[in-house]
């Protein structure tokens, strides 16, 4: 019997047997659940990994010197830390970043960040900055100065515009009198020419973060923020890899310094999401398996006389199996196709919805075809196994016995 005949008659029977809709729904829901759970699980893991990769804070340790360093220079403390294994860079924590008002626009601000070798974005459009550069900055491709109105996407300033105008700051200078901060009438004013642009989304930054050189950062802090200087030197220690952060902290503790992670991540949440998704996937697989077995068994029971007739008319067991298998595969493939269309539409709608919120913009759902393949495989394999097992049983039955079974 030709494949064309099997396909043609299977299509006819699938189209005309309205009961197949139940199997179709079982497989469709199963496929969507498995694909959805896998996508969400991978989305969370991917997001966490992205966040860790983007944001240097997860592999930055803040180290505080012991009291014996009150009488020593800060440089001695930093040099001690620079000698440690897995440490890429050490700098004064005071020089890390500072939020300062813009010139002639004191209600809005720019967050200036130390553009040291390891903290600079990996991809910069235009020129980069060096340690000793002065009066230059790298700013976002889309700059937002009003961060209080965070969700408003209408007031973005194009990075190209900033290259023309630069960024000018106006920082009030404080003085420390008897341990209290007092505002003076002096201001630290500086203009930074924007020489490069970067994407804040892929770097885990806010839209008002600009990088300046370590030299400019030191100057800014020493003049405008010296009143805020810590009594003990505090260092930012950048570690080469997240997995080495704990060992670096142990070594810092061995040297008698206190330390803590600049930013930590709640892995329990990720684990919880993974566990829940795994349970959903396992339950879905078992559900599909049980429901498919019950349903195919019912279909075959309704079809016993047909199987008997086919046998009587000279159909081999293989012919009969090919027919029932083909019918099931047609239903499975339709379920796969519809679930693919539905899943893609869902992702599209969710992503369009997310795009309206800039805080979620970086969380666009990225779904890999692997998630689909797993779901597809399950709803193909389960009916094939079920049908093969049931056919083994029917193969042994005599045609007349099957015909008279009812």
């Amino acid at each position, binding site marked *: *019997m*030709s494949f064309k*005949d099997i396909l043609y*008659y299977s299509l*006819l*029977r699938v189209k*005309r*047997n309205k009961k197949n809709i139940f199997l179709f729904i079982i497989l469709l829901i199963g496929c969507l659940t498995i694909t959805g759970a896998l996508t969400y699980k991978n989305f969370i893991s991917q997001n966490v990994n992205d966040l860790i990769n983007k944001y240097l804070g997860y592999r930055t340790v803040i180290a505080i010197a012991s009291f014996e360093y009150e009488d020593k220079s800060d440089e001695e403390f930093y040099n001690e830390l620079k000698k440690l294994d897995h440490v890429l860079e050490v700098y004064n924590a005071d020089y890390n970043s500072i939020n300062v008002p813009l010139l002639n626009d004191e209600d809005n601000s720019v967050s200036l960040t130390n553009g040291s070798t390891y903290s600079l974005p990996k991809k910069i459009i235009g020129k980069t900055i060096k340690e000793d550069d002065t009066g230059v900055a790298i700013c976002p491709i889309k700059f937002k100065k009003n961060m209080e109105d965070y969700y408003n996407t209408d007031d973005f300033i194009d990075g190209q515009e900033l290259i023309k105008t630069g960024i000018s700051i106006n920082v009030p200078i404080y003085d420390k009198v008897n341990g209290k901060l007092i505002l003076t009438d002096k201001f630290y004013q500086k203009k930074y020419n924007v020489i490069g642009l970067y994407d804040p989304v892929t770097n885990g930054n806010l839209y008002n973060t600009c990088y300046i050189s370590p030299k400019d950062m030191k100057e800014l802090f020493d003049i405008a923020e010296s009143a805020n200087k810590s009594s003990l030197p505090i260092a930012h220690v950048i570690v080469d890899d997240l997995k080495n952060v704990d060992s670096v902290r142990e070594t810092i503790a061995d040297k008698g310094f206190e330390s803590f992670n600049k930013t930590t991540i709640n892995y329990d949440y990720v684990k919880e999401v993974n566990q829940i998704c795994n349970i959903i996937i396992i339950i879905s697989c078992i559900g599909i398996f049980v429901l498919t077995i019950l349903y195919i068994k019912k279909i075959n029971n309704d079809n016993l*006389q*047909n199987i*008997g*007739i*086919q*046998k*009587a*008319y*000279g*159909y*081999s*067991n293989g*012919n009969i199996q090919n027919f029932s298998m083909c019918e099931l595969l047609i239903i499975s493939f339709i379920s796969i196709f519809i679930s693919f269309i539905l899943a893609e539409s869902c992702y599209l709608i969710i992503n369009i919805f997310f795009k309206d919120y800039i805080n979620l913009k970086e969380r666009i759902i990225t779904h890999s075809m692997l998630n689909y393949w797993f779901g597809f495989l399950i709803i193909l394999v389960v009916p094939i196994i079920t049908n093969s097992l049931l056919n083994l049983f029917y193969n042994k039955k*005599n*045609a*007349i016995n099957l*015909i*008279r079974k*009812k």
Partner: protein
Amino acid sequence: MKEVINLNIEKSYILKHKIIPVFKDLKLSFESGKFYAIMGHSGCGKSTLINIMGLLDNEFKGEYFLNEKNVSKLSNKELANLRNKEIGFIFQEFLLDKYLKAYENVIFPMLVNKDILPKERKKRALELLNMLGLEDRVNHFPKELSGGEQQRVAIARALANNPNIILADEPTGDLDEENETKIFNILKELSKKGKCVIVVSHSNEVKKYADIVYKLQDGKIME
């Protein structure tokens, strides 16, 4: 008249370690162009005889010649092939595929017959349905047909591969008198056209049409 079936068999079942004999020295022969009726009460072995003659059960002692070919030692595949080409089955409950139209039901046995080309199948199915007076029912589904019409579609299906033998198991059991007469007339006509028609039936009506009546009693045949 050509002998198409020659049986000389013994058959027994084993039930709870006991041997239950069904047929003992059962000798039967059937010729083409004749209408045979096999009658007997329930449990006398009619179904077992249909299974054996229809090549659906080859677990028996003795020999079975179909068209002078000993079929008792054939493999399942060879038996299936022979069944497809040599035997047309008709059952009491018609047993049409409810999801296929009348002509598609007739085509179904042809799908495994390599001697009939795919492009000839529909033409042949329509010819058979026309012959049985169902030309205006070819595109109907079984549920849209009366019992008599369904049985005529089943007869067309039985004739699909032009078999020499028509094996009918209670073909009028579910029909009224009028349709019973129609079906027996059709079967009689087929025997006149050279088919060997074997009808297993409770109905005494069949005696009117049969050339030879076999009565099955206690595992033996009485002519």
